[in-house]
């Protein structure tokens, strides 16, 4: 079941530069998309979400872009900081907030000081 895919298992970015994490999905019924950040020995922490009726959502240093026609979303982190080093999961759900999340496999982001 590969409904949500993150094709890059890892990414290294210089501190202060932009980090771009990508995610693709196949299920047209997904209505909400989320990014979670996960440190070792902790649970996923919600970062930012976007509804399918939007193409961009911004929260501080984090921006998520959604391209519905391409079934693609990306997370931009600007500027990248050492504390951003973590595993980032893309997730998707249906239109109702109580629906299950379908996760991607994650991308390990390393910020190089």
């Amino acid at each position, binding site marked *: 079941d590969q409904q949500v895919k993150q094709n890059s298992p890892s990414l290294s970015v210089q501190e202060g530069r932009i980090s771009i994490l990508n995610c693709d999905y196949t299920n047209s019924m997904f209505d*909400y998309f*989320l990014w*979670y950040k996960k440190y070792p*020995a*902790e*649970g*996923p*922490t*919600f970062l930012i*979400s976007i*509804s399918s009726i939007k193409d961009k959502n911004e929260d501080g240093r984090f921006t998520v872009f959604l391209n519905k026609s391409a079934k693609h979303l990306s997370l931009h982190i600007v500027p990248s900081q050492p504390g951003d080093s973590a595993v980032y*999961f893309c*997730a998707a759900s249906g239109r*109702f*907030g*109580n*629906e*299950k*999340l*379908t*996760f*991607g*496999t*994650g991308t390990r982001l390393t910020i190089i000081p």
Partner: protein
Amino acid sequence: EPEVTQTPSHQVTQMGQEVILRCVPISNHLYFYWYRQILGQKVEFLVSFYNNEISEKSEIFDDQFSVERPDGSNFTLKIRSTKLEDSAMYFCASSDREGLWQPQHFGDGTRLSIL
């Protein structure tokens, strides 16, 4: 900031034994979930729970699994007769869907090791 808490952080159990994983969701949340992550794999949905009943369950959530909200604060996952392949991180999550769509918030997980 309110958080989801899970106990224990690590549980070691012999194969065939019963295990109960415990979660205290965020207090005003209405929807509760269990997910698991086998080492090296993606986070997978197990079950969702609302209004004292299961809303949805995955194929993984077979007759060996059950969930319960025994009081106003706890939410438990029971595995009746554990198998080696049940070894995983188990995450509890909760969400509040009053009004606008709300994201799910996760606990730090219980690492379950089956020997």
